[in-house]
């Protein structure tokens, strides 16, 4: 391979270079470049120094040298311009007219470069909202976001507090309502406005001689209450409440203005055992009724379930008023 290059281009280049660098120019340049580095004159000879199988002067290396020379003395660009220009232009036109293998390779590489460049531009455009922002802008942006998030956190805390207070308010209201309901239960049982059921005893008083009067019944009720009676009913019809009264009328016994027929049945809700004991103790109701004075009979049965369905209709108080307002439920 004595001559690796196609077409006589290198020779021409060498020719024009040596043409361009006339002895006068060289002398001038030497004068300008006192320093030892002077790569430009060596360039035309580089291909000749290489062994035949080596590639001639890589463009990059050449250019590196050229760039150093160019950078070191820019004023020299005025000097070696005239001869190579027509040659270069002619070569350009020639290449436009008759493309060769080198042009195909250049086309392929330019294709790759164009593709890569477009891809890079696309990537750059895709996410350049913050990548191209300056540091101060970013810091400001971050600051803004931080304060915004602090503000929103405060808002969240406020809303959480509101939520908690509302929840606890609802809770207290619910608790108060439960309390009130419990009180209503207790009080309505006490006032006899609702039916009641529960364990208790049933007391049957047989009084053939009709000697059981209000005192005896009042005694019986007192005994029962003493033993923890919660609800008392007489004859399945009369609910004994706080305001009940007992009297002996011309036709016999009266409770709350209702006549009580014979035999008398008293149903009591409470602890059955205590109630029976309270009725049976010595000198109590049973002994009083079965005693010689009255001569009646008393029958007591403990029941698991006593149902009291008679109600007491409450009369609104005419004179009494609560002295202080009732406490507000909380």
């Amino acid at each position, binding site marked *: 391979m004595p001559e*690796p*290059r196609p077409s006589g*281009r*290198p020779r*021409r*280049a060498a020719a*024009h270079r040596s043409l361009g660098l006339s002895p006068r120019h060289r002398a001038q340049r030497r004068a300008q470049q006192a320093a030892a580095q002077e790569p430009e004159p060596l360039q035309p000879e580089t*291909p000749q120094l290489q062994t035949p199988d080596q*590639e*001639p*002067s*890589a*463009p*990059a290396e*050449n*250019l*590196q040298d*050229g*760039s150093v020379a*160019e*950078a070191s003395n820019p004023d020299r*660009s005025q000097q070696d*311009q*005239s001869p*190579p*220009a027509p*040659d*270069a*232009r002619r*070569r*350009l036109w020639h*290449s*436009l007219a008759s*493309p060769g*293998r*080198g*042009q*195909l*390779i*250049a*086309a*392929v*590489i*330019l*294709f*790759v*470069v*164009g*593709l*890569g*460049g*477009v*891809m*890079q531009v*696309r*990537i*750059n455009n895709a996410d350049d909202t913050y990548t191209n922002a300056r540091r101060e802008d970013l810091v400001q942006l971050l600051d803004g976001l931080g304060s915004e998030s602090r503000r929103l956190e405060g808002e969240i805390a406020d809303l959480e507090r509101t939520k908690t207070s509302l929840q606890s308010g609802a809770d207290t209201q619910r608790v108060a309502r439960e309390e009130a309901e419990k009180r209503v239960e207790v009080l309505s049982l006490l006032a006899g406005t609702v039916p009641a059921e529960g364990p208790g005893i049933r007391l049957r008083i047989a009084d053939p001689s009709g000697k059981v009067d209000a005192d005896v019944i009042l005694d019986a009720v007192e005994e029962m209450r003493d033993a923890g009676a919660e609800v008392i009913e007489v004859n399945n019809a009369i609910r004994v409440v706080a305001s009940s009264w007992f009297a002996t009328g011309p036709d016999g016994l009266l409770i709350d203005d209702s006549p009580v027929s014979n035999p008398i049945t008293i149903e009591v809700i409470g602890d059955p055992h205590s109630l029976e004991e309270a009725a049976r103790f010595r000198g109590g109701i049973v002994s009083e009724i079965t005693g010689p004075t009255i001569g009646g009979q008393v029958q007591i049965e403990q029941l698991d379930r006593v149902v009291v369905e008679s109600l007491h209709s409450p009369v609104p108080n005419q004179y009494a008023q609560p002295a202080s307002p009732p406490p507000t439920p909380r």
Partner: protein
Amino acid sequence: MIPLIGLIVGILLGLFLEPTIPLALQPYLPIAIVAAMDALFGAFRAYLDGNFTDRVFVVSFISNVLIAAAIVYVGDQIGVGSQLSTGVVVVLGIRIFTNAAAIRRALFHA
């Protein structure tokens, strides 16, 4: 003429097909493009000067791109990626300007 057509076809393909490169290679693409531009300008200058060789062109193109990408990669690995890529861009930019100046002188005598 053919290289220009290649460039235009590449740009058009990139515009219309919207190819994407793997995310891992994205940091090296810009540097590779700058290196490729340097090789292209160098080749054009060499062509105008008459000592253009396609084999040298291809080899220098590929090696430029690979070395630039490798420098950035190494810089990324040792934590000075942005500084190294800046340095590479500066050097390649100087070379591009030098080549452009030579081309300008060859073509326009100025």
